[in-house]
């Protein structure tokens, strides 16, 4: 159906132009309150407040408290930031000190550049 394709293109353009109001579901898995864990918490909070204000949910999990979750979330290194929404699922290892890389991996980097 040739009539539909311009519609689709228009839809795509519109979606791209729209401001990103999607909800970010984030989980930060840490292993005890080590300096590195603390660092990671500070970093993610800062990123979220700066770039995702009002559109994120952040849960901090201490794996020592809930060791079963380590297997559930397939954690290898700590700290690990899990982004379950929006798709795709992303798994960021490290203390999130590299903000540019973190934002790019979380898929918010584009917006920052636009702004």
């Amino acid at each position, binding site marked *: 159906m040739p009539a539909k394709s311009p519609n689709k293109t228009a839809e795509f353009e519109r979606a791209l132009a729209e401001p990103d109001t999607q909800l970010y579901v984030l989980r930060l898995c840490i292993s005890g309150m080590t300096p590195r864990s603390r660092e990671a918490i500070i970093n993610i909070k800062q990123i979220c407040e700066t770039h995702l204000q009002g559109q994120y949910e952040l849960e901090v999990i201490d794996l020592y408290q809930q060791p079963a979750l380590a297997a559930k979330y397939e954690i290898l290194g700590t700290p690990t930031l899990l982004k379950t929404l929006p798709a795709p699922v992303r*798994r960021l290892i490290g203390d999130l000190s590299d903000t540019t*890389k973190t934002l790019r991996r979380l898929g918010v980097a584009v917006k920052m550049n636009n702004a």
Partner: protein
Amino acid sequence: MPGVRKTNGLPLPHLAKTPTGIRGLDEITGGGLPKGRPTLVTGGAGCGKTLFSMEFLLRGAMEFHEPGLFVSFEEQERELLENVASLGFNVNQLVKRKRLAIEFVRAEHSEIHETGDYDLEGLFIRLGHAIDRIKAKRVVLDTIEALFSALPNQAILRAELRRLFRWLKDRGVTAIVTAERGGGMLTRHGLEEYVSDCVILLDHRVIDQMSTRRLRVVKYRGSAHGTNEYPFLIDETGFSVMPVTSLTLDHEAPTKRMSTGIAPLDAMLGGQGLFRGSSILISGTPGSGKSSISAHLIDAACARGERCLYFPFEESQQQILRNMRSIGLDLSQWVERGLLRYHAARPHLRGLEMHLATIHRQIADFQPRTVVLDPVSNLMDIGTAAETKAMLTRLIDFLKSHEITTVFTSLTSETDNPETTEVGISSLMDTWLLVRNLEYNGERTRGLYILKSRGMAHSHQIREFTLTDHGAKLRDVYTGPAGVLMGTARTLQEARDLVERGSRHNELTRRQRELESKRQAMEAQIVALRAAYDAEAVELETVIDERRQAETIFDQQRESLELLRDGATGNGSGNTRKGVGHERLRQQSRARNERKERPRGEAR
């Protein structure tokens, strides 16, 4: 105190070991893997690392009541369970009973993004949690090198691995860490630098298109261990390593004897047959009946209720059973009763070591009293003479230590002298029977003789060996004035001998008869002579009697005459008168005698 060494009252530390339960490995390592320490198992692709470590856990869970945790970085739980199920372990039940846990750690490079400094504490927590859940004593990490491709930051990874192994030690679990071999090193990523207590190398190499699996304990800190390469086997019942190079010569020497199943052969072997637990080599040219002799031997053994294991390298079980039926041996009955087992395999199916490993496995499984390898010369094709000898040495050593009687048959070339060609393996044998095809007079016959038989007075004679419907027969060969003969030539010669003997016998009886008749003739003559003599003697005696009487009468008459003449007789003329007078007197007396006899004759 001088001269006294102080040990602070503490006993010398003894390295505790965790038995693996893997056949053979515990012998090599002197009891198993170092307890509470990580062991590195390395090898190329497909050499059995995963299986090795899995069996370590399964045996631990089933035989030593030590729950095990399998941490897989490559295969999912389901895949692993499927792979191991083929080994005949009921893995699912072990998992249900919490004797075994499988933890799959996904490490995908594409899913991992580094955003700064990190550690692997998450992995530690997972492992710690899994260990606590089943109270695992054994842990396998298979293969941790997957992390190297998943995590970009090698510096962090190496530091964390070092910490991981330290951590495993602190937890007190006996761990196996597998790694891929490569780059001219034991492991591709140099893991041996972290795991240094025990390193086991698995190898799967192909030489002359023959694959052989080998295992070597590269390093075992604080413990003596076998340093050789040991062949190992993976089959439907798992992993087994053969510590076969224990070349100590201290096995028992049984004095009991066993029959070969061929009575005349027993007679040749000092009258009692073979020694139990000895090694017997039967060598011969093609078709000389080597297999038939071995078949007799196992038939006799099975009849005694002993188990026999037969390794044919050329024929299938069915073929052997059929062929032996033709000489009157029903071996299938023993197979049905579970006393006889065949394990047929082409020599080229696997390498020498693998053959040895299979033989070991089969023997351990079946526990036979007698083992036959038919023919062992075929193994020479897949290895050099030295290799074959080494393999056979190990095999014989193993069999002797278990007091298993072993029969090896060996095919020898028609042209070569077997006594020189088989000099290599013959020295390993206690008894050496040689069956030779002898060509004579347009036919072949088999001659059997005992080249050697240690520890017994054996026959040195060649016997003719024939195969009949009722089994193998041994006959004394013809050794006569015409030489050593066998087969029809022997039969002919025997017939000839018989004829000759017959004619000799006839000649003898004829001579005897002649002698008899001569004796009879002589005796007849003696009788006739005696008769004649008797007759003559009677006559002569009569005459003598008459003469005596006449003499008496004459004397009387002379006396009376002298009386009558009154002594007036002259000497000169008296003689003639006397003679005349005598004659007259004789006539008178004869007439008187006739008168006397006459009435007697009339009276009769």
